[in-house]
């Protein structure tokens, strides 16, 4: 299977020079073996601005730090080769005004990013204005750019917004850098794990803990339309689905159910939560409308029905059921009708999650003692396994549907030592598998939508 994937995706990166833009473009629908050389010139700041910013943020060279955010984002896609700053011949300020393209071509850079940071005072408050330009080195011209003004503490987000712009311009697809990941931070021995909700920027910075670890919390998921989160909490030993506003910290239990509710997920419009209710040894899928407070049972079967996930148009739900005797993936209409099994490969299947593009379902598969993260079409055809390990599960899609983040646990040794849980990401092509660094052990990741303004 893996070989097949390799064959299918061993194509070189195609760099097209389209007539309209004459800009290099990246085809990311294929595997990437030849990343595009790109230079991110350190963003320039005049001395007055530097001093001001140093006073505000205690950062000596903010321009350079913003460049690093961009470089880091682009490099981690596996699509770009960010060139070493040491090799840059031109000064950042002059490059930003008008690059000497020969100099950049000499170090084999095809794309150049330059920028400028200025401090500003508006209504007696400090702001920073950040300007960025994207240059096509071979075409010898500027192809994109913008400037924006924001509060100084927002500087990393500006780096992410620039990264998104560059990614969109060069790949033709939406970016995913100005996003956050919510996950479960884990600590302590395996038999007594302490779990907290944590949130961080997509690149691992700005980690914040949202619960204290007094009660077990699991499976946080973002509302795709705002900064609300739904998750499972064992508060007062009553496992129930909760809703959390991460701006205000306000939490509330979702609905009034006579048993354990779990496996929550928002509908694409963010107005409903689907979840499982377990009662008297049977788990069924329910939906609760957060505006009307009407809750409705969608499945009716003596088997376990869980892990529901909506299609992006909201018309269908994929879920996990063992009604055939063991765990398989099913699809039904969002009113619960027309239930159809779609997974028929060897092994058992769990945690189906519909891609934000609508064409694929990511899943966890257990076969011959190994766990796989894979994708299949929504009719179950075209199954592709992306990664294999001792234990891994819980795929979550990047908002542009290009990357899957999941968690992986290690096998313990004979003495039960050596357990760890970490977040990993992998490209849809099966390439570019990466550890996502977190302050503590981590599991159950969920990727937010693009943050907007």
């Amino acid at each position: 299977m893996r070989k097949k994937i390799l064959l299918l995706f061993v194509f070189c990166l195609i760099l097209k020079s389209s007539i309209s833009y004459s800009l290099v473009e990246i085809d990311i629908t294929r595997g990437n073996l030849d990343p595009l050389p790109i230079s991110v010139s350190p963003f320039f700041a005049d001395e007055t601005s530097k001093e001001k910013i140093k006073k505000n943020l205690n950062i000596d060279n903010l321009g350079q730090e913003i460049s690093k955010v961009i470089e880091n984002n682009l490099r981690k896609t596996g699509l770009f080769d960010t060139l070493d700053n040491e090799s840059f011949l031109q000064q950042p300020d002059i490059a930003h005004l008008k690059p000497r393209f020969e100099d950049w071509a000499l170090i084999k850079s095809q794309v150049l990013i330059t920028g400028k940071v200025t401090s500003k005072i508006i209504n007696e408050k400090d702001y920073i204005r950040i300007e960025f330009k994207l240059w096509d080195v071979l075409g010898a011209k500027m192809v994109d750019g913008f400037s924006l003004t924001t509060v100084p503490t927002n500087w990393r987000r500006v780096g992410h917004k620039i990264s998104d712009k560059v990614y969109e311009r060069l790949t033709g697809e939406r970016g995913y850098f100005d996003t956050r990941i919510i996950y479960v931070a884990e600590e302590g021995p395996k038999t007594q794990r302490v779990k907290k909700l944590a949130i961080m920027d997509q690149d691992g910075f700005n980690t914040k803990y949202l619960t204290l670890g007094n009660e077990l919390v699991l499976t946080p998921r973002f509302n795709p339309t705002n900064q609300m989160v739904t998750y499972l909490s064992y508060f007062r030993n009553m496992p129930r689905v909760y809703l959390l506003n991460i701006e205000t910290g306000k939490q509330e239990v979702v609905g009034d159910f006579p048993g354990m509710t779990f496996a929550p997920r928002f509908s694409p419009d963010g107005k409903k939560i689907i979840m499982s209710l377990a009662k008297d040894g049977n788990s069924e899928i329910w939906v609760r409308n957060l505006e009307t407070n009407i809750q409705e049972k969608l499945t009716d079967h003596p088997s376990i029905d869980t892990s529901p996930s909506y299609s992006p148009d909201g018309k269908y739900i994929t879920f996990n059921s063992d009604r055939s005797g063991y765990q398989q993936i099913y699809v039904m209409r969002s009113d619960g009708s027309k239930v159809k099994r779609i997974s028929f490969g060897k092994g058992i299947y769990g945690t189906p999650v519909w891609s934000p593009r609508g064409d694929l379902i990511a899943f966890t598969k257990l076969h011959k003692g190994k766990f796989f993260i894979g994708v299949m079409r929504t009719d179950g055809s075209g199954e592709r396994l992306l990664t294999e390990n001792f234990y891994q599960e819980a795929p979550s899609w990047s908002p542009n549907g290009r990357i899957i983040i999941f968690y992986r646990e290690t096998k313990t040794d004979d003495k039960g030592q050596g357990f760890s849980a970490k977040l990993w990401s992998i490209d849809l092509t099966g390439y570019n598998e990466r550890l996502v660094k977190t302050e503590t052990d981590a599991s159950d990741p969920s990727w937010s939508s693009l943050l907007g303004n």
Partner: protein
Amino acid sequence: MNLSKILKNAFLVVIIGLIVTACATKKSVKTTPTESTTTTKAAETQKADPIEKLDALMQGDVYIGTDTVGELASGVPDRVFFATNETILTTASRETLRKQAAWLRQNSDVTVVVEGHADERGTREYNLALGERRANAAKDYLMTYGVSSDRIKVLSYGKERPVDSGSNPLSWSKNRRSVTVKAN
């Protein structure tokens, strides 16, 4: 698979199972649950790689040892064990639960929580459901033996609270359990 084939396989499997038990050779445990009947389980046991001598501690892949077992009351074991992905109570489990029921009938002021657990070899959400199913299997049995349902709460922990942190079939078998805990 047609019916005659199933029957034929099941028959073979039973024979193999008997031979395996009779010889008391190395027992091994499947890690991938694929079927729900006990007969096919025996077949998989036969096929899977042998791991270690577990004769005294596991039957099929159900834990039969005592080293993690606590007491609900003197002489009354607090827990029962399950096969991979299963919620069926074994003969030994039923015996344990009858003891629990007898004790609960004698101590009618006691209420309990039956905690359901799964091993780490399953997805988190499915295991939460599986733990709930196991806890209810134990609860139902207690009710059959005269304990009223309002004295028994169930609480599933899925795979969140293993007693054994090992990553091997024996550890997993200890973790697939329901535990009856006094609530007052």
